[in-house]
């Protein structure tokens, strides 16, 4: 079965080349980094002080300016860079926002040295026990689900004050446990932060428990 080919417009190659040029320019603009500086930080001398001190150590004597002046210049430059890129993005921003696309590829840009480990503890017959501890072969309840990248996106990198999405994740975990294990009456979900060290540095045994959420059977 052969379907007829659609006729091609004579100006099609020109139009296509123009569209591709526009597409490439728009994506190139979206590949430009945007300086992370807020409006209230524009005149804040404490903004990135440590980094500015390093730069001043390198270039301050050559430039012959004060540390404060260099700080002013850096903040002014970062603000101008940010505003310029955002202005350039403005015409195509609705499309990029609507389809949630970008050309910013910060993949493992900064690797954490204090990672979190997801922990689930349950109370059974009055005794607390660990049901899940990531990478612990003996405590791997629903490991495939909890390590799935989209679920990890909800709990990994949660800040000190967990947001609602994390809270709903812990509620869901508790609901599943209560459904599956009738002898469990309490569920505790938390993140355990461990400070990893380079091989020649003594390991830090301290574990920080945070983002703890507590659920009781009957409350759910």
């Amino acid at each position, binding site marked *: 079965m052969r379907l007829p080919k659609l006729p091609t417009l004579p100006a099609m190659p020109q139009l296509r080349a123009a569209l*591709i040029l526009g597409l490439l320019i728009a994506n190139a603009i979206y590949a430009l980094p945007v300086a992370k500086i807020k409006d209230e930080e524009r005149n804040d001398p404490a903004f990135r002080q440590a980094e500015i001190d390093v730069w001043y150590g390198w270039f301050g004597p050559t430039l012959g300016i004060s540390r404060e002046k260099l700080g002013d210049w850096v903040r002014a430059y970062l603000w101008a860079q940010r505003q310029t890129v955002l202005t350039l993005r403005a015409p195509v921003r609705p499309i990029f926002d609507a389809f949630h696309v970008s050309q910013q590829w910060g*993949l*493992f840009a900064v690797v954490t040295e204090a990672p979190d480990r997801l922990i689930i503890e349950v109370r059974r017959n009055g005794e607390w026990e660990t049901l899940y501890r990531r990478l612990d072969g003996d405590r791997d309840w629903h490991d495939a*689900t909890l*390590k799935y990248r989209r*679920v990890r996106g909800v709990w990994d990198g949660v800040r000190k004050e967990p947001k609602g*999405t994390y809270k709903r994740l812990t509620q869901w975990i508790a609901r599943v446990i209560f459904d599956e294990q009738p002898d469990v009456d309490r569920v505790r979900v938390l993140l355990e932060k461990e400070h990893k060290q380079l091989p020649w540095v003594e390991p830090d045994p301290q574990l920080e428990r945070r983002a703890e959420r507590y659920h009781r059977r009957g409350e759910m």
Partner: protein
Amino acid sequence: MTVAERLRGWWARWVAFWDEREHPASLGLVRMFLGLCWAYDFFNIWRLGLVIPLFGVAEVGGFSDALMREHTPLFYRLFAGTVASATGLHLVMTLAALCIAMGFFTRTSCFVLLCSWAMFVDVLPYADRGIDTLSRLALFVLMFSRAGQYLGADAFIRTGSVWGDGSTILSSPRRLLVLQLVVMYTGAGWSKVGMTWWPMGHFAALYFALQDPAVAAWDFSYLRHQPFFFFTQVGTAVTILYQCTYPAVLLLMWWRRHPEKGGRIADFTRKYRVEMVWITLGFVFHLALAATMILGIFPWAMLAMYPAWFHPDELRAFFRDVGRRLGLRSAARA
């Protein structure tokens, strides 16, 4: 030559470059492999019992606060916040991904998946990772291509054979995907500002990444000991080097296209196909990621785009050679 004549010449070459055509084999393979990765990922969501948690709103047991926000996401403005809506969105995405893998109404399927995927991100932004962004960008390109004209139902409908009839398609979608890969690797390299990627941080990034229980596939605590730590340092250094220098691949490909340019250095790179160093390193890098980290479809979807690196004539010659060696008639026909 005047500036206007020079500009006209550049524009004519630009138009001609994007108007070139080629066999659909490379793009067809990218489409099929990407479609399979996406379909697997959506199927996996169902297998893990995560359809409602990920696609549903809090009111029906989902993680999303979509109905509590000031601006309700488009999907939940169009559909009620019910289990059926969440299931429906997931089903549409899964079917669209399957259609793309099969090359069935490819362009429409790409459009449907792109729109539904964007709606899904609105519902639960935390569930969206880098590979999802890259996938949507790839969908944008595939949506305007005839990627279904090889190894697809579209090819069968049009020609009576899944292999198609050998009609050429535009090279531009494949070239845009190549450009996208270069931008992604380069961007990933240049944005690695963390000290541990660099000598002053002892090239310890890979070591620390593999100590992170959130992403490590296994317990890698033994990496504290030598020579394992040294191996991770080598891995970190190679990663940063090949990603930061990725734009060189475009220059090498340009030299291959223009044998008269570049002098002796270009002759050397053409003779030994030096760009394969970056492509092979990327291939090995993704296989290593797949073996050591839990990043879902990331390494596989990246590898799914690798056929784009090769001109279809090269791929077809390779398939014919393999087919002849194995005595496969279908591969030899490709």
